[in-house]
Structure formats: C-alpha cells, structure tokens
C-alpha cells in the first residue's frame, strides 16, 4: 500500500474540513467506547484479566521462538504446512505460489490487516489472481478502490449514502438507502463468490501452539465461508499471534470482544486445525499458515517489545481524541490510531513515519483501555527519542527546544528571562487580559486567545513578599 504518512498534517487538515468524514466519525463514540464501558462494567474481573493478559503476552514473547516451533510442528502433524516470510515481498510470493499450485482464478478473503500490511490484493491482481474481500466493510472498500481506515470497522469513514451509491453502481440494482437491503445485496452477490473461489485467505487472531490451531473471530460469518468452502485455506498471520494453550487463548478471547466492540463474545469464534480429515464432506484439502515477520522479530528485546502484545482490538483508536478528530486515513498507511503510531515507524521507517508518534498529546486514554496494557504513550516517546538522536525533527522545533533547555538548566538566567516574558506579554495584552495575536505563537493564537500573564513571575513576587515580611 502507498505510504502517505509523511503527509499526515495535510491529510489531517483535509479530514477536519471533510464534512462527510466528520459525520461518519461521529458514529464512533456510540459504536465503540460506550459499549465497551458497559461490557467492562459487567465483568468485575476485567482489570485482573488485563493484568493476566499483559503477563501472559510477556511470557510468550520471552519464549516466542519456542512457541512458534511448537506451533509449526503441530500444524504439520495435522496435515497443514507452515511458511515463514521475513518480508512483505516474501509473503506475497509464497501466497501467490500457493494460489498457482491450485490454478486459482479467484480467492475469497476474510478480514485481515496483515494482508493489508503486505499489500496482498494488489500483488495478486497484478499476477492474474482476483481477490474478493468478503467482510461487508472490506467489500464496500474494494468496490470503491479504497482502504480500511480502522482495523476492525474498515469502512467507518463512510456514510450510508456512500455505500448506497457504491452498491447501486456495481450491483445493477435499484438504489436503496436501507442498510438491511444493502447488506442483503452484498450477501447475495458474495454467495456466488464464496462458492466459486479456489482459495480462501483469512487472518488469524491467535495461533495455538498446543494444538496447531488458528482461530478467527468474526460477527458476519464471512471468514468461515471463506475458509470452509474452497479447496485451499491460507491463513496469513504474524509471528506474535502465537499463544500456548486453548486456556491461554481463552483469556485473550475474554478480553478481545469486550475491548473491541463491547460484545460479550463475538458471534463466530472458529478454530481451524489442519486440513480436511478422512471422511469429512467439507473443509479445505490444503491448509497453509503463512507466518509474516515484517520487522516484528527485530522488536523482540528492543524498547518496542511491548507493542508485540497487541491483539488488534482497536480500543486505543476508538478512544483516541486524535483519531476521533482526523480518522484513520490521515495516518497514511495501514495501521491508524495509537497502535499505528507505534507500529508504523517500525514498518516503514521513522524517517517516513515520524509524524505519527508526534501526533499525540500523551493523554494516556489508549493505555488506560488497552486489554494488554501496552504503554503506548511511552512507546511513542521512544520514537521521539529516536528522531531526536537522528536529528529528524524540524529545525525550528530543535532550536526552540535547545534555547529553552539552555535557560531551564540555568536558574539564574531563567528567572530574569521569565520575568521579562511575563512583563512583555502582559503589556501586549493591554487591559483586555488576553492576547489575540502573539508573534511566534501563531499555532496558538490562530485558534484561541492567549490569556495574559499577571505581570511578573511568582519567583519574583515571592522573593519580594519574603523580603517585605522580614522588614516590616
């Protein structure tokens, strides 16, 4: 996928001015945070589940190589194959090869962010294999030539009218603005695609080392049709998704739905283990798991290791005021919101991704709702440290910071300087008590007044008061 992350600021600007987008983003709050809050309320042990989720993920990461090997051997034991892909290019080539092996013309796809990450659809199409997205949101986007703006609600940036027009254009049916009718249309159109597909590609929410199973979690049932009907099922997932046992998977399932959609449980939680068994009347004859790395293994042992705990629930972006203001496309690549602001620089490089970890007030709401307690603000700060060391920040910001630091480290210079600044701003405000336009602070005064200081510093006033106290 094209990388537009360096243009975050311009994209955010456009997003804030886009009335349709702003209307669509208005659905976010009732759609996610409010439901999550209710679900958490109903589960008194939620906080302890989060602690256990964090600890278990840490255990897994400390033993990641061993759990991956165990998972691999169990998949093979059950008649499946495991393919390791260090890069997106490797993953795409492996998947294309698997499609060619069964002479695939079309592949159906369940919702998978990893396949977005590796740019699978474009690659398959360019090589003569037609991918068909089957998740309703992803399907809408594919028809529009668009990309997800959210990791679990891909079309959240669209309104009913957009979907209505898109379907009218592509389905050759009368235009409807009834969501139920639109969904029925998609159901009918995709039925034939499910049946015709030669290969089904899904992601995996977790890979269970104990059994060699992969699990997908969906509400629509599209993932199940995708993986059950075609001859070949390819699971495209990433290395950090492995969990030790079914019990361990269960811990994360309890966290996932509640954190994501605020549901008690997602409608379909489906475990796939190997290929079709003897005597089975359906199910895939070939079962492949593609384990994508794409920079993740380098995060192990680094200051970003905590990010590998992520279970892709989307709670961080659902609660993020920046995401809520500008939407997912502003982030310019696959993963938006706070988790994207940590992951994107790892995958596309800090030189291109540096805008994102800076686009945070460090309000900490993301960390407070994260089911595995990833310290997202801290990880974003680590990226800023990386940028600082590489001198990647804009010159004005670097010099400004250096000037301020020079004073802040010298209290005897700092005090007269702040006194002067206070006095100067006070004069600038005149009698109004606020400043409408402050030189060098346009970022502030373009949008809001600058309340005037009280005329001198506390340090000065205190000193004078103390002096007066001593000499009554």
């Amino acid at each position: 996928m094209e990388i537009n992350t360096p243009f975050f600021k311009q994209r955010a600007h456009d997003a804030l001015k886009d009335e349709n987008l702003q209307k669509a983003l208005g659905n976010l709050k009732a759609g996610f945070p409010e439901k999550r809050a209710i679900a958490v309320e109903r589960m008194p042990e939620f906080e302890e589940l989060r602690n256990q989720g964090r600890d278990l993920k840490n255990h897994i990461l400390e033993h990641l190589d061993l759990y991956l090997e165990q998972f691999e051997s169990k998949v093979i034991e059950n008649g499946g194959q495991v393919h390791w892909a260090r890069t997106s290019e490797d993953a795409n080539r492996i998947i294309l090869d698997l499609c060619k092996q069964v002479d695939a013309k079309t592949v159906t796809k369940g919702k998978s962010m990893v396949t977005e990450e590796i740019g699978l659809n474009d690659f398959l199409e360019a090589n003569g294999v037609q991918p068909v997205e089957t998740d309703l949101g992803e399907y809408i986007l594919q028809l529009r030539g668009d990309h997800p703006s959210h990791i679990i609600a891909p079309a959240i940036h669209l309104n009913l009218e957009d979907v209505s027009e898109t379907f009218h254009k592509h389905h050759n049916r009368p235009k409807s603005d009834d969501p139920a009718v639109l969904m029925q249309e998609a159901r009918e159109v995709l039925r034939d695609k499910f049946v015709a597909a030669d290969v089904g590609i899904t992601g995996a929410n977790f890979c269970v080392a104990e059994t060699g199973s992969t699990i997908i979690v969906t509400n629509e049932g599209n993932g199940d049709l995708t993986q059950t009907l075609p001859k070949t099922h390819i699971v495209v997932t990433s290395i950090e998704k492995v969990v030790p046992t079914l019990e361990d998977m269960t811990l994360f399932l309890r966290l996932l739905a509640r954190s994501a959609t605020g549901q008690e449980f997602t409608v379909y939680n489906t475990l796939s283990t190997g290929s079709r068994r003897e005597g089975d009347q359906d199910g895939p004859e070939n079962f492949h798991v593609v384990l994508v790395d794409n920079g993740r293994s380098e995060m192990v042992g680094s200051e970003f290791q905590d990010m590998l705990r992520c279970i892709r629930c989307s709670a961080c972006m659902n609660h993020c005021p920046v995401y809520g203001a500008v939407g997912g496309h502003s982030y310019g690549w696959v993963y938006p919101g706070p988790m994207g602001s940590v992951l994107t620089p790892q995958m596309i490089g800090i030189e291109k991704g540096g805008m994102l970890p800076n686009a945070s007030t460090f309000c900490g709401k993301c960390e407070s709702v994260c089911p595995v307690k990833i310290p997202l603000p801290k990880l974003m700060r680590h990226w800023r440290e990386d940028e600082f060391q590489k001198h990647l920040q804009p010159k004005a910001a670097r010099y400004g910071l250096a000037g301020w630091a020079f004073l802040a480290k010298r209290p005897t210079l700092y005090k007269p300087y702040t006194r002067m600044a206070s006095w100067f701003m006070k004069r600038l405000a005149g009698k109004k008590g606020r400043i409408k336009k402050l030189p060098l602070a346009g970022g502030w005064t373009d949008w809001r007044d600058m309340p005037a200081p009280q005329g001198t510093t506390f340090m000065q006033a205190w000193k004078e008061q103390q002096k007066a106290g001593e000499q009554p």
Partner: protein
Amino acid sequence: MPNTPSGPRVGLFVTCLADMFRPSVAFATVKLLEQAGCSVEVPERQTCCGQPAFNSGDRKTTADIARQTIDAFDGYEYVVGPSGSCIGMLHYYPEVFDPADSYYQRALDLKSRSFEITSFLFDVIGADVLQDQLKQLQFNHKVTYHDSCSGLRQMGIKQQPRQLLQQVQGIELEEMEEAETCCGFGGTFCVKYPEISNRMVSNKTDYISNTGAHTLLGGDLGCLLNMAGKLKREGKQVEARHVVEILAGMTDIPAIGEADYDLAQQL
C-alpha cells in the same frame, strides 16, 4: 498568616506556567499548605520540570533538569505543586536514569515525596483538615471540572478536588460530558498540530458550555490556558480558574484571561 506551623516542611514546586502566567495559583497553593499546617519553602534553584524535553525525546536535557530539580528539593519532607502534569513529570524521573546512576535512587525518593496539591491535601494530610476553612468560603456558582490527563490517569486524581470543592458553601458541581477526554493542549502538541488541537479544544468548550456552568475548574494551568483561550475566542461567558483559587478563597483575582490585573502593581 496562621500560627507557627507544626506540620511537615514542604518544598513548593511552582511549575513554570504558574510562575510565568499565574503566580496567584502558586500563592493559593502556599496558602492552602499553610492552612493545612505545613511550613512552605520555595527552593530558588527550580525552573521547569523538564517535560518539554522529555516529550521531545531529548533524554539528556531531561536528565540534566531532573538532577537540578532533585538537588533543589533535597531534604524536604514533601514536594507539592499545583499540577498533576508537572508533578507527574517528577514521577517519571527514575525512568531517565540508569539504575546505577546515583540520581536513580534519589529520583525514586523524590517520586515518593512529591504530590499534586489536591491529592496532597486529601490523601496525605486528610480529607477533613481544611473543613473549617473551606466551610467559611462562599462560591455561589455552578462549576464544572475538567480532569487533566496526567493528573487523572497517571496520578489518580479524580475525587480529591471534587471532595474538597464540595465543602465550599454554595458551590454546585455539574459534570460535563467527556470530562476525562483530553482538551488538546498536550504541551508542544498544540503548536505542532494546531488544527487537531483546535478541534479537540472546540469539542471541550462545547461540553463545558453545555453544562451552563459559570466557572470551569481544573488542576493544570496548561489545560486551563488552552480552554480559557478558546472560550474567550468563541465569546463564551464561562470563567476559568485553577481549583486552588476557589479552595484558597482567592476568587477576587480576575479569572484566567479576564480583564486587567497586574500583580507587579500589587507588590
């Protein structure tokens, strides 16, 4: 001035925004601490907590400033300041030192001694210690309270200011929608991403004015300057004050961004 203090010796962490923009907030903090029986001193060698450097990724400057602050506040039983964000920064100091560095232990020690003012009064000194003074205060207005992010999520400040405010006569607290959502200040964020910041603070001022409150209260001047500046620009008739101004009975001083007041002339 109250009687000779018998309580703990407290070093006031002024915070750079109170120092430069609103010294009355620091004076109110001193007043509350003295009412609570503390002896208050203001160490000369303090400047800023170092948060701008910390959040810009400049660890060296952060560590330099942290050392300066640790030295300045050596020996005080408690360190108290009128900001969850700046005191929260003091709590981050251990992160900027290698555990082998001699300042690491001292940073941990400073962390254990430093408190935001409402949390100090309520959690350390005790909920009822100011009840006599607070009972005598009158503030016959509806107020709404913004929970600043660091105070709320890092320092656990939520009930403390509210419990203290409720002891003031005549005050009516009306909670706004999304009281716990960031106002968009974010230190350098508001100048790095002004348009996004503006959207966030605009949402905030809508929620504030929806309550019909006369006064917006909060515990952090950064957020308050941001919200007050936006309220003024939008022409909304809501005053903004730091919570200590109410608790210390210092509401005769004009609210943030209100008409003329010159501290220099008062001295």
